[in-house]
């Protein structure tokens, strides 16, 4: 059986979730691997959410927000833009592959773009294989 990655997607309500909705209403076919969680703003995506998703067994995490300058709350996506590179540095030190966590800006009119991103990310994560984080932590707890 081929490995089907489980990807958690945090999508902002105003642009990216609407963009994903457009992909659906436009009947665009794309990989079903992203489990979408709607957040009011990409700034709501606390680094804890991403880490928690990985700890709980997600193979990847996708965060989508409005393009810079287009935030419904003026500056929310800039907050994420500042936190994200620090989070990536942190995850790198934990040994988590770069392609497992991704940030993209998707507007409400970019249904095709959203579908392309999901397809691309799904393939990249599929190539990486299943995340070893959860099994490793379970083995730690059992092996003591």
């Amino acid at each position: 059986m081929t490995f089907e990655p489980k990807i958690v997607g945090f999508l902002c309500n105003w642009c990216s979730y609407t963009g994903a909705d457009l992909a659906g209403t436009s009947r665009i076919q794309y990989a079903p691997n992203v489990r979408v969680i709607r957040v009011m703003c990409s700034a709501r995506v606390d680094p804890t959410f991403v880490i928690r998703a990985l700890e709980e067994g997600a193979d990847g995490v996708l965060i989508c927000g409005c393009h810079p300058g287009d935030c419904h709350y003026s500056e929310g996506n800039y907050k994420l833009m500042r936190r994200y590179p620090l989070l990536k540095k942190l995850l790198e030190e934990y040994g988590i592959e770069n392609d497992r966590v991704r940030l993209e800006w998707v507007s409400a009119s970019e249904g095709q773009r959203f579908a392309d991103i999901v397809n691309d990310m799904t393939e990249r994560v599929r190539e990486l294989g299943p995340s070893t984080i959860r099994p490793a932590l379970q083995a730690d707890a059992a092996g003591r």
Partner: protein
Amino acid sequence: MAEKLQIAKYWGAACGGCDVSLLDTNEFILDIAAAADIRFWPIAVDGKYSDLEAMDDGELDVSFYNGAVRNSENEHVAKLMRQKSKLLVAYGSCAHLGGIPGLANLASKDEIFDRAYLHNPSIQSGNETVPLPESTDDGYELEIPAFYERVYKLDDVVDVDYYLPGCPPAPTQVKAVVQVLVAALTGQAEAPPKGAVVGASEVAVCEDCPRTREEKKVTKFYRPWQIIQDPERCLLEQGIPCAGIVTRSGCGVRCPNTNMPCRGCYGPLPNVTDQGAKFVSALGSIIDSKDPDEIEQIIADIPDIAGLSYRFGLPASLLQRKVTP
């Protein structure tokens, strides 16, 4: 209960600072000695593991375990202490969250052995000797504790009644906690709820910090020695990563009061699961730039974000350790 309280203290993977912090209560240590029999405390009084093993279950009233669990010896004594004690206190950052030894979770056991015993400038090149739990020398069978793959905090291996945070815990807090426990054990006061963090407050270090706070917007991060700081102003606002914002207070603001940033030793605030993730969030939020390239440049001044944000609590973080694929 015996006439005097029966207490014990042990160090696992620790530096000894926690043992010293108990002595740092100055003359109060004499009150402890008057009120309690110190049955086992390797750093200060004579005693063997066999003495601990010979005790009845629950014979000790309170045991303080400081240090993380790095090897089989640490785990063995932690389990013994749990069995022999009515109350077990995780004493200090290492027992509470994994502490400085917990940073070793960013490397595997093989990497650590390679650096410590095989490829190290201070070791004769070509050395191939690494410690093994069991070996034979001159016909004698030798045993040493087994070094684990990773570091654990105390409550990963045994049930813990109370947590006393700090690296090391502030002597005033140590004194207060000992008094509370003595009062509880002698029936003079109610014991804190099981699992409580004792000897610390419920607010962030910033709440108790006397520095003035204006606006948090930085365009450059500094390490403490790279900048002549304003002694009155918030360190974070000056670009010095100070963990006070994500750290439980109770320490007496010891570091910021001596012009050093808080390192986060008192651990996460109540209801926070991952202290480091919160620190990443806080540090990111104060960067004053909207240009991705400039942001990259600004964070390049933070050389080790995992070490900075989980300095005392990597084994207590959600991810706990580096994952090697």
